[in-house]
């Protein structure tokens, strides 16, 4: 049986797609799953940096498209978790170097040798977004609790709905419970209400995430990190487990959340 293809998308840039891809890839690998992370952000490659695999790259996805190497040759194995592999983007090319059909073929080929293929989509709703969601069995929409990001997420969900029937789930990233309590940030409930798709995780704002990204050691590997725990929980939910949502230091807000789910 082939593995599941999951695309991480958002519409708006900088909301945390690459962060989510790296952490969920490792999170699933921690559960013993064979994972291939694909960096589809051709020309703006950074999944390799976040995973700390930058200096091991020999080939990239465009080399595979052009037949200069095979898919297994291009995969970079994680030094910590041997069941995680990365298919890097090309840094010196642009998105026109790959078609939807190429992406579809390579993702499905990867799914033959992995339990999960996780695709880090570029920002936007143009070609890069289109080819990244083409092979997906599931799309995880990442948004921040702010008006512009939610609006773009809504647009992306609309495009997915118009296009076919690929299921989508929501990850709310960078939530600050203190701001929500003071009514200075959208709460998770209003975001979920508006987007009207199932929620699979709420990741708090965490300075550790930035540092972890820079060091190439995602927070999911840190036993003590709350954000890390959130990512480990999302990984288990992807595995079909029913994991309760973590309290994010704001009981009143959580009560409402549990009321809805």
């Amino acid at each position: 049986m082939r593995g599941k293809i999951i695309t991480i998308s958002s519409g708006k840039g900088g909301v945390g797609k690459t962060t989510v891809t790296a952490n969920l890839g490792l999170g699933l690998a921690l559960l013993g799953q064979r994972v291939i992370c694909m960096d589809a952000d051709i020309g703006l490659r950074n999944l390799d940096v976040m995973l700390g695999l930058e200096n091991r790259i020999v080939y990239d996805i465009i080399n595979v498209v052009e037949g200069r190497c095979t898919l297994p040759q291009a995969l970079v194995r994680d030094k910590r978790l041997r069941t995680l592999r990365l298919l890097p983007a090309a840094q010196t090319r642009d998105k026109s170097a790959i078609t939807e059909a190429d992406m579809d073929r390579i993702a499905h080929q990867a799914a033959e040798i992995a339990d999960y293929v996780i695709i880090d989509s570029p920002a936007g709703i143009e070609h890069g977004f289109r080819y990244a969601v083409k092979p997906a069995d599931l799309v995880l929409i990442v948004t921040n609790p702010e008006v512009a990001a939610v609006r773009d997420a809504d647009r992306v969900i609309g495009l997915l709905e118009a296009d076919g029937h690929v299921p989508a789930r929501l990850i709310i990233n960078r939530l600050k419970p203190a701001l929500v309590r003071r009514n200075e940030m959208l709460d998770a409930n209003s975001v979920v209400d508006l987007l009207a798709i199932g929620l699979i995780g709420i990741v708090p704002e965490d300075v550790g995430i930035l540092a972890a990204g820079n060091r190439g050691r995602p927070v999911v590997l840190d036993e003590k990190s709350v954000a890390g725990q959130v990512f480990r929980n999302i990984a288990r939910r992807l595995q079909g487990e029913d994991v309760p949502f973590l309290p994010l230091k704001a009981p009143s807000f959580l009560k409402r959340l549990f009321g809805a789910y």
Partner: protein
Amino acid sequence: MKQMPIALKGTPQGLLLKPQAQSWDVILNALEYALQDTADFFRGGRVILELEGHTFTEDDLIALRDLLERHEMELWVVLGVDEATQRLVRAHGIRTRLPGTATPAAEIGTPETIFARRTLRSGQRLNTPGDVTLLGDVNPGAEVIAGGNIVIWGRARGVLHAGAMGDETTVVCALDLNPAQLRIAGVISRAPEQRRRHPQPEVARIEDGVIIARPWTAKG
């Protein structure tokens, strides 16, 4: 609120135009303006002009036909003109009667109505010359544009435009009416800055030239 210089109404036969002002300059200007917003409905469509008690010269005819052609519409029928003008109109290959019917244009049947059941998301748009009923939310960044009335059984947050072809008697109803912008015919209102805590169903209509929203009760 002044009357619009020209009334537009979608009908199954085509777009019905009824000038209200006397000056053709004013009429054509108003039409040009109205079509900027609504031409999408009618692209490639036919136009029926009803001229009750208006003078109509050959220059007016040509100006109108050219304006419509720029919006990819065809001047198809001209109704309600005297014998001499009828001959002039026919000389340009334009009809002076609706084919196969003696029905007055004003009684032409109802235009197309849309019923939809979904969330209308950012970047999506529903539009029709007739009425719209939506079972679901209109999210921020989405648009509903209707020649007729709009009924939203859900939260209305995007842009809503009823009476888009000039009908000032149309209404907009929603369970939670808080659109970014609400338009009825040519009248515009924007959302209040403060969002209500406990929304209630409301119906908005034009009263004395401004849009007023009132509780939406069984009496409508």
